[in-house]
């Protein structure tokens, strides 16, 4: 039965380089990754929804809740990316769940952009410009701080390894 392994069973004794289609199939996104991204996205979006419901802002007001969400999400991704790529080997689903899912679902670019536009329409162009630049600056400083602080705090332990 030489064809038994070919009908859908991806045995590890099959050389994937022999068949480009098989290689492409192996590169397909696993359902577990999509499920982790989706579940994380739900948690992140619900946290964002909870915060914006608890601290509502009206037309023409500085969107502090979304500002805080995007800045803190950027700080967290800086910490997370150093942890999973430089400090320790993480489970393959940690980055899809926490990084792509939770933080991606928590932070939002679309609300940021539409709030800027509506602030201009509501006659607050200076606030809109301040929010535009302020969020960008805070986000970049937050990522940088998260990355540098995590590297700094994890360095002594990494240095002690034999």
């Amino acid at each position, binding site marked *: 039965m030489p064809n038994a392994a070919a009908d859908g069973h991806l045995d590890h004794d099959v050389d994937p380089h022999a068949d480009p289609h098989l290689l492409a199939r192996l590169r397909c996104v696993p359902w577990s990754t999509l499920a982790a991204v989706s579940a994380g996205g739900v948690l992140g*979006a619900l946290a964002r929804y909870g915060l914006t419901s608890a601290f509502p802002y009206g037309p023409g007001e500085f969107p502090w809740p979304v500002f805080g969400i995007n800045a803190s999400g950027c700080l967290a991704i800086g910490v997370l990316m150093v942890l999973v790529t430089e400090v320790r080997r993480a489970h393959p689903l940690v980055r899809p769940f926490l990084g792509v899912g939770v933080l991606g679902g928590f932070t939002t*670019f*679309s609300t940021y*952009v539409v709030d800027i536009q509506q602030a201009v329409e509501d006659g607050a162009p200076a606030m809109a410009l301040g929010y535009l630049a302020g969020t*960008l600056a805070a986000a970049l400083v937050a990522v940088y701080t998260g990355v540098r602080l995590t590297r700094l705090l994890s360095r002594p332990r990494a240095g002690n390894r034999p």
Partner: protein
Amino acid sequence: MTVLLVALGAALGAPLRYLTDRAVQAQHDSVFPWGTFTVNVIGSALLGFLAALPAGSGMMAFAGTGLCGALSTYSTFGYETMRLAEEGARFSAVANAAASITAGLGAAYCGMVIAAAVTG
């Protein structure tokens, strides 16, 4: 009920961002984060459209807060921009920030114009 609609929208939006990012990035052999740029522009256009309709509260929770919110991302945008700057690709970093915000604003405006045209 609103919470469930937000959750449902995000359950679709987040994996949609992941798949779009992979598909777009696979087409470009460059350091520029085209994948994140694409999802942020699409999310901005859709939210601009919904905001101008105006959509009902249920629709806004599902498609606006849930789907567009989870489809677009600021954390990955911020991280990728910082990484470009850190790796010496300063021009790409500035271009990414400027292009993402400009294109996002333009896309949201287009969404609003389309909504105005549809509703009359």
